[in-house]
């Protein structure tokens, strides 16, 4: 972990300005599975660091903001290595400010944005401009991936070394698979020079052509063409073989199918440096939701069958799946208020990530809270960032949560510019009340903020 960078090295507006006054979370349950902590403390944040985990009730430092957090929990804040901020080109869906605000509201202290913008982020000037903008607008530390191939066309490599110098945190053509094995192989070879991770959207477009949902009994009933599970798993198997041959490391994005979990597990057992992620929606929902033909349930990869969902949960539990990533993909209302097959792909997910997984998987006893917290923070590591942790003198990346609070997703609107949530209208348990990112308060839930003001 020696060469890991702190989350504060990412760009955001909090990196400038005066230091904030000290913050004390009084009498809070501190839970950090990575540090092996589950105890009640007064958490003191000073100069961007966790100054101490004091005995509950101790006198706080003078002039500090004191938050009465009795009955509340503080966790390491979450890290999402897979979001879409839509800037430039699709600011009607989202921009850096709204997307990062959504992240802060969901308890995330760091996010990595994908390069499939318009134009795609495939040259150094583009990445530099995004970083400048993030320093003005981003509510949480934000990193930018650059494209693997020019224009995301899958044919020619981008100037990966130059992009790395400009501050790209990794490479991905997310949204488009790299169909050519030859191009992927060259990228993985070149990666040795560049030293940044490559994240892969795994899909064989020949097998998924024309599909809008998971291929199975539900698609058969609806008459909607499917994206079969093998369109994902065969590409993972191919790319794992190429990466193994080249001695390269790969990160597989948004696993959705049982076959994919098996393919990753096999690659791991063969010694490949492979990491992967699964989304809250794939972990909690199935293609049964698509029976409603509601386009809020359309995303790529699609919601799959119950057996796939169970395989993802099992993979997450056993660590085959390294982290939870939202694939936050905002779309405007008019892009979703169309027949399912015509609708845009993707769902927003930052603001509901913890609550959805907590409600659907932790409360029913399917997954331990500790496992979920570990996986919600672990997405930093594959991209070279220190996963958030709660320990004296660690950078303060904290999320304050009321695990008893129940709320209806979307009823108060969204911080995101878009509302295409597949949890919209659901009653969820567990509410993020406050997010501290890189030592600064990045978010306060409105009614909670008024209560403590």
């Amino acid at each position, binding site marked *: 972990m020696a060469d890991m960078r702190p989350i504060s090295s990412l760009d955001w507006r909090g990196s400038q300005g005066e230091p904030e006054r000290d913050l004390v979370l009084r009498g809070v349950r501190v839970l950090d599975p990575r540090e092996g902590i589950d105890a009640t403390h007064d958490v003191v944040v000073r100069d961007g660091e966790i100054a101490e985990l004091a005995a509950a009730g101790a006198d706080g430092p003078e002039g500090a903001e004191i938050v009465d957090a009795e009955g509340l929990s503080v966790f390491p804040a979450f890290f999402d290595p897979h979001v879409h901020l839509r800037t430039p080109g699709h600011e009607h869906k989202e921009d850096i400010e709204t997307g990062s605000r959504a992240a802060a509201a969901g308890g995330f202290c760091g996010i990595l944005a994908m390069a499939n913008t318009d134009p795609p982020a495939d040259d150094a000037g583009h990445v530099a401009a995004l970083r400048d903008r993030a320093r003005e607008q981003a509510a949480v530390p934000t990193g930018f991936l650059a494209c693997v191939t020019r224009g995301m066309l899958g044919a020619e490599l981008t100037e990966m070394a130059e992009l790395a110098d400009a501050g790209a945190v990794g490479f991905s053509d997310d949204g488009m698979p790299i169909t050519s094995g030859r191009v992927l192989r060259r990228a993985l070879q070149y990666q040795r020079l560049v030293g940044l991770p490559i994240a892969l959207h795994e899909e064989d477009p020949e097998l998924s052509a024309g599909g809008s949902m998971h*291929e*199975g*009994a*539900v*698609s*058969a*009933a*609806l*008459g*909607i*063409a*499917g994206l*079969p599970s093998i369109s994902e798993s065969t590409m993972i198997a191919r790319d794992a073989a190429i990466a193994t041959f080249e001695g390269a490391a790969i990160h597989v994005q948004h696993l959705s199918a049982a076959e994919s979990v098996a393919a990753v597990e096999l690659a791991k057992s063969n010694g490949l440096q492979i990491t992967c992620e699964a989304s809250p929606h794939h972990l909690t929902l199935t293609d049964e939701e698509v029976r409603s*033909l509601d386009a809020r349930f359309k995303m790529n990869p699609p919601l799959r069958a119950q057996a796939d969902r169970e395989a993802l949960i099992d993979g997450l539990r056993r660590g085959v799946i390294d982290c939870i990533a939202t694939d936050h993909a905002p779309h405007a209302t*008019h892009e979703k*208020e*169309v*027949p*399912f*097959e*015509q609708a845009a792909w993707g769902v927003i997910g930052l603001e509901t990530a913890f609550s959805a997984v907590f409600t659907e998987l932790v409360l029913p006893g399917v997954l331990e809270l500790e496992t979920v917290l570990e996986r919600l923070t672990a997405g930093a590591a594959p991209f070279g960032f220190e996963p958030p942790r709660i320990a004296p003198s660690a950078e303060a990346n904290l999320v304050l949560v009321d695990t008893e609070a129940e709320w209806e997703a979307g009823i108060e609107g969204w911080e995101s510019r878009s509302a295409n949530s597949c949890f919209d209208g659901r009653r969820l348990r567990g509410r993020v009340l406050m997010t501290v990112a890189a030592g600064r308060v990045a978010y306060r839930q409105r009614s909670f903020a008024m209560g403590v003001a």
Partner: protein
Amino acid sequence: MRHLLAIEDLDRDDIERIMSRASSFAEVGRRDIKKVPALRGRTIVSLFYESSTRTSSSFELAAKRLSADVVSIKAAGSAVDKGESLKDTIATLSAYAPEAIVIRHPYAGAAKLVTAWTSAAVVNAGDGKHEHPSQALLDTYTLLDRIGSLEGKRIWIVGDVLHSRVARSCAMCFRTMGAEVTLCGPPTLIPRGVTEALGTDVAHDLGRLGEADIVYALRMQKERMNESFVPSIREYATHYQIDSRRLAPRQLLMHPGPVNRGVELSPEVIDGPASLITAQVESGLVVRMAILYEILTSGEPRGGSGRRDDAELPAPTPIGEPA
């Protein structure tokens, strides 16, 4: 019944009610003046985003026989050509306060979506490859008219099941009415998971076709060949064409039309005594009259603008003695 969106939404009572209503309308077609005032003063919009001959014409004629005012809109040459969204088109048409909108659309779920944007009753006249409920109801009517009951009957639906909304709606409708359904076609054209989805049997050749009481052939579109679903239309016809050699005299033959003569059906069976194809078209009219009557007289308030008082509308006049 508020809308007719999918056979999946209907139970046996719903289907039987439409069947008996259709029987009562059959008499109207035998009169000199083939018109009753049942839906006088009601406005029905027919909105077709895909080409159609029999479905659009029979809905239009059904509405006219019930004395409704009909506006027919085809996508070609309309605002749709100018890029208007479905939602905006429906909002525009709803300003005329129609009591019903009959819609055909190339994508699944379009009719259901429309229900959220209008207070009119919505009839699905085909949504993508999903459902075509009025076709299944008219086919059921045709069969009941001929053989009285579907209970225990074996029905084979043969052809391109994968791309067929007719196959989906018919399979569900026939099963609800007590029939056993087998879907038959090349493995490339039978959707994965269909047995679980529809509760049907699956066959990949016509070897057991003899067990069928009714053979329902589907239209085989020539473009399927280019998409590698079948190597050639000739090979498809060799394996799956229903001809007089394969069709036993006691078996009834159906087809939703339009037929590709010499592909899914040989010419002699189309015009043969076992063929119900013309009867299906006739049934289309009375069943669609029954559907429109059913959804427009179910007693729930209507009117696109919400400004109109339902009490001002002339009460629908019962015809004959509808059951």
